[in-house]
């Protein structure tokens, strides 16, 4: 069975591809070039097409389900009404599956499950990366503000930190916001 993965994000596509391989699907083609997308898909002649919901080419794919000379095989657009839960889960995870008619339902279900878990894993990874980045960012801001305070008021490092923490508590702010104001003020007073 051939699966086409349409995704312009190479990392997410790789994660999904690995997930599908682990689940025993080995014939996978990743398309990341949206030019002549339909022609590429027809040439690949897949049984299943997976596309991420951020992809503007989704509407282009919908054209495949029209009666036209371009269609080589019937494509079922929906899985099955009884599978509403798996469809909901995949839409929530941000991926959509197009299935060629005649595929066994249990196989469809297992593909959708892989999609959902891999897309969720990718989202987690992205948000973890994002929070790691912002943590690092915050630490840099705190250090800079601390340095400014130490210099301006001739304080030790722990004293400077305590001062910011007290101000944050008093003003009901986050300590990083206090640090930001110190940096802004210092820039203005330069």
């Amino acid at each position, binding site marked *: 069975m051939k699966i086409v993965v349409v995704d312009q994000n190479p990392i997410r596509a790789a994660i999904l591809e690995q997930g599908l391989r682990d689940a025993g699907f080995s014939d996978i083609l990743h398309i990341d070039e949206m*030019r002549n997308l*339909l022609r590429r898909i027809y040439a690949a002649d897949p049984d299943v097409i997976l596309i991420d*919901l*951020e*992809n*503007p080419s*989704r*509407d*282009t*794919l*919908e*054209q495949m*389900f*029209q*009666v*036209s*000379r371009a269609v080589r095989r019937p494509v079922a*657009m*929906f899985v099955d*009404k009884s599978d*509403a839960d798996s*469809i*909901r889960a995949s*839409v*929530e995870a941000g991926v*959509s599956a197009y299935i060629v008619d005649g595929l066994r339902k249990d196989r469809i279900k297992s593909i959708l499950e892989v999609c959902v878990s891999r897309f969720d894993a990718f989202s987690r990874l992205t948000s973890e990366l994002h929070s790691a980045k912002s943590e690092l960012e915050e630490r840099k801001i705190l250090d800079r503000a601390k340095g400014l305070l130490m210099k301006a008021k001739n304080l030790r490092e722990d004293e400077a930190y305590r001062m910011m923490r007290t101000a944050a508590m008093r003003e009901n702010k986050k300590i990083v916001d206090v640090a930001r104001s110190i940096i802004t003020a210092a820039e203005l007073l330069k």
Partner: protein
Amino acid sequence: MNMRRSLKIGFIPLVDAAALFVAADKGFFAEQGLDVTLVREISWANLRDKLAVGLYDAAHLLAPMAIAAKLGLDRLDVPLAAPVSLAMNGNAITVSRALHAELLAAADGDISRPAVSAGALAKVARKRQRAGREQLTFGVTFPFSMHNYLLRYWIAQAGLDPDADLRLVVLPPPYMVENLEQGKVDGFCVGAPWSSVAVAEGLGVILHMSCEIFARAPEKVLALREDALADDPSTATALIHALVRAAAYVDDAENRAEVSAMLARPGRVGVAQDIIAATLRGELETGVDENSRVDRRCLIIGAGGACRPDPRQAAWIYAHMLRWGQAPYSTRLLDAARSVFKPDYYNAALTPAPGAAAAFEPAFDDNDIGAYLRGFAIGQKIAG
């Protein structure tokens, strides 16, 4: 007083979503006890799917998509319904400068008349066929869209078969212009402001406003899941009140600057304010010399009772689906199509304006779809 109800409504960046933006920004939703979050989407398919699985409570949707959902022609088979319309018309057929020059050379008369431009298109397409060149390619926004039916209607009137003599491709509205620029399409039919963007960038020429072909064509509806609508009619009533008021606000010329500024914002339509204002005035620069074309019907948001969905409009859309082989015919499907456009909520909430009934030009009788289809040389017919 009812609890404030939170609703998520998805939209595609187009001027014809104006009533949604105005109802949100002017507090018309809030006045009705609705806490509405508008979410910008990237594809029609996303809107439909997220509406179907309940991630959205309502969506700014192509009217034919709502009908396709009810008829089971699309993906998820979750019936949708439209208690209020968001817009009529608003589309334009735009061609590349190169194709426009070819059409002018081939035209037999005034090219601003659709019959003449279609005739010219037929000549150009046939010439290409004879020369063995690649077929002309036109972009539409979705298979189940007025853009598709409008473009096909125009193409077919001069004897071209849109499925054999040209290539039609589906592209999301904001991507039309770059496809024209890259030569991937020779023209397209799309909603405002994207034709005007192509003109402003010097890439395209507006051949026709959609109202020059269909005088009053249903375009976008506010679609809800049929079951959700039946379970909670009070929300639909609140939405109708807010949107009809917003539509009147959009229609009032005095508010044009304010409304176009709201639409121009980056998270909304996100194109230059003057382009949006021109669309709302019904004045489109065509890209030919300094010409602009003015038609009050260019985009209709609320005027003439346009917000009231009419089952006959739905039947008309179904007729176009039949013509192009998208749907089979049965009286059951015809009734199902009609039932998607539900005027009952609107009628109960407001007094319909006189003359608000659907008006068709060219003529159409929803009780004789067979005759309508027999009137066309190209396209499928139905028995009886």
